């Protein structure tokens, strides 16, 4: 959490959007990479070269009033893989920004039909991102649904900064949703998968997976224990991971996925109940004071049933 920017309330919110720009940019590539999952590449050097891991951008199809508003998508990748043959794919310049999205509702359904060459409206980079993450020897990334999109860059950054190990534990409903796991492997991240139906990896939830991968503290495999957990996914899953981490005394940082209408702090849609130093809570705008928070400061909903049993219930496949 960006404690310096939040210190006191003299300017009662950080202003990360000061660095954001509203642009209209072309789609460079757009393809399906998994079940209802698409990868979108935009020519957007301002965001690609100016973002912090865990930041997001707002995307909109120009000229439409239905859907009216932009949607937040995590900045998935700005690194261009060595086998990318695009001649402009000069890694030093970072000309492109990649998003990975699940076809879900109005916007993502419409977006999936917008071809390469067309333009999108975008503003970003937005939010705090994982800018204050401590350096640890072993970082655990925990993803649910499409939440992995916030985690690739932070895993890569940890390895660059000298972590000896980054482990991804990724849970989904079905194996077909686990698109682009190779992006994590190529980045040097250990990937462990779980699916509710057992179609890929362990059959069970991501908590079952965490229990399997990380031996209990004090056990024979204690060396495998992560020094820090970073998590993104549906809220009930993040609440469960926060409890799991707290139970082991491991600090946990989450990236919340509250619905957003503006992404820049002007509408007060995206709030989550966050505790301050005194322990009192207030609704905070996750788009400007988050989306990344210390899990210990989030007031998690009581008694959530997770995973949900209905197929229509979850936002994330």
């Amino acid at each position: 959490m960006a404690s310096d920017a939040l210190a006191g309330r003299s300017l009662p919110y950080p202003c990360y959007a000061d660095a954001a720009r509203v642009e209209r940019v072309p789609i460079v590539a757009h393809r399906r990479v998994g079940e209802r999952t698409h990868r979108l590449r935009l020519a957007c050097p301002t965001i690609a070269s100016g973002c912090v891991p865990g930041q997001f951008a707002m995307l909109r199809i120009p000229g439409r009033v239905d859907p009216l508003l932009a949607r937040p998508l995590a900045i998935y990748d700005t690194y261009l893989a060595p086998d990318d043959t695009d001649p402009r794919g000069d890694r030093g310049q970072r000309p492109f920004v990649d998003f990975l999205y699940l076809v879900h509702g109005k916007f993502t359904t419409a977006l999936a039909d917008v071809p390469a060459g067309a333009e999108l409206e975008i503003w970003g980079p937005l939010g705090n991102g994982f800018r204050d993450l401590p350096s640890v020897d072993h970082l655990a990334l925990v993803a649910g649904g499409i939440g992995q999109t916030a985690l690739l860059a932070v895993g890569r950054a940890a390895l660059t900064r000298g972590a000896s190990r980054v482990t991804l534990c990724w849970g989904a409903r079905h194996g077909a949703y686990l698109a682009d796991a190779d992006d994590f492997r190529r980045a040097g991240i250990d990937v462990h998968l779980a699916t509710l139906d057992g179609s890929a990896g362990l059959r069970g939830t991501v908590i079952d997976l965490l229990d399997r991968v990380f031996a209990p503290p004090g056990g024979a495999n204690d060396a495998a224990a992560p020094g820090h957990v970073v998590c993104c996914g549906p809220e009930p899953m993040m609440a469960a991971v926060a409890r799991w981490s707290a139970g082991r005394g491991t600090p946990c940082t989450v990236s919340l996925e509250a619905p957003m209408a503006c992404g820049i702090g002007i509408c007060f849609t995206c709030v989550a109940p966050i505790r301050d130093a005194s322990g009192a809570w207030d609704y905070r705008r996750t788009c400007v004071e988050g989306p990344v928070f210390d899990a210990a400061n989030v007031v998690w909903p009581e008694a959530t049933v997770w995973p949900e049993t209905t197929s229509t219930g979850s936002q994330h496949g």
Partner: protein
Amino acid sequence: MPHPDRPAPAPDAGRGLARAAEGPDLSVSLGRLRLPNPILVASGTFGYGREMAGLVDLRRLGGVIPKTITPHPRRGNAPWRTVETAAGLLNSIGLDNDGVEAFVAHQLPWLVDCGAPVVVSLAGATAAEFVTLAARLDGLAGIAALELNISCPNVSHGVDLGTDPEACRVVVAGVRAATRLPVLAKLTPNVTDIVAIARAARDGGADGVSLINTLQGMAIDWRRRRPLLGNVVGGLSGPAIKPVALRCVHQVRRAVGLPIVGVGGIMTIDDVMEFLVAGASAVQVGTASFADPTASVRLLDALPAAVAELGAGSVADVVGTLALPAAASGCPAPVAAAPSPVSEAPPHAR
């Protein structure tokens, strides 16, 4: 279809065209409130202004109206707080704010230096709370006007003051007596007769009315048999409500002698011009700033050409120039007291 009784061009139309070359005069007056141009940003849709400083040159705006403040801090309603609907947005934010003292200490100092006129939006649960807020802000430097949010559909009491003419008059009169600042009353469309409420605001001494706040609505997830908004019901905004807002501006313009700020669904320069022609002296951009953070300045960029296209030399020359068919039904005849030009202040404000 052209109306046979469309008024002939004003005698000074030629002068207007000549002036258009150097750009029409964009400044407007609402009673005692003078603004550099008619494009303001609406309360609750522009944060406290500071959030937008990196994206919009605030100095260009006709006015900034920060999010409504209340006497005490309010957490606001539980999520979800907004739901997108067909060409619209439902919200039930619930006046989430840190209270007037935090506003004065932390937001206002930056706002009054932002370079745009600042219209502070207030809400109280009672007339007495409105008066207390107005008195607290009265002596402070840099505030151009107050806007009374007697129309928020998302808090109890809010709507009551805006739906009963006498309650509305009492609030406005109380505030009028407590401040020297120009006062705008922001009205709800969720009434049978908005003209009656606007008259009450005029009788209370308002310098103008802002029309409209959101329309009450709701959204449902039928599979879970649940409302989508945490507050169950909320207020509808965005392009979907523009026809309602235009109708309100038109009716109040015809029936009540009070300057109007039009708000509701403004996305394009055509929308802006429609409100001006209908009788709004200025407009507020709301939900459009969510869909495009630069919407307000984009509209301002397009304004001079649109005013010139009408052959008008100034925005003020466009205001209220709607040509009605000879025997128009569904709109009250203008009252004898309707002032023209609209910038004339109501007697109470003098």
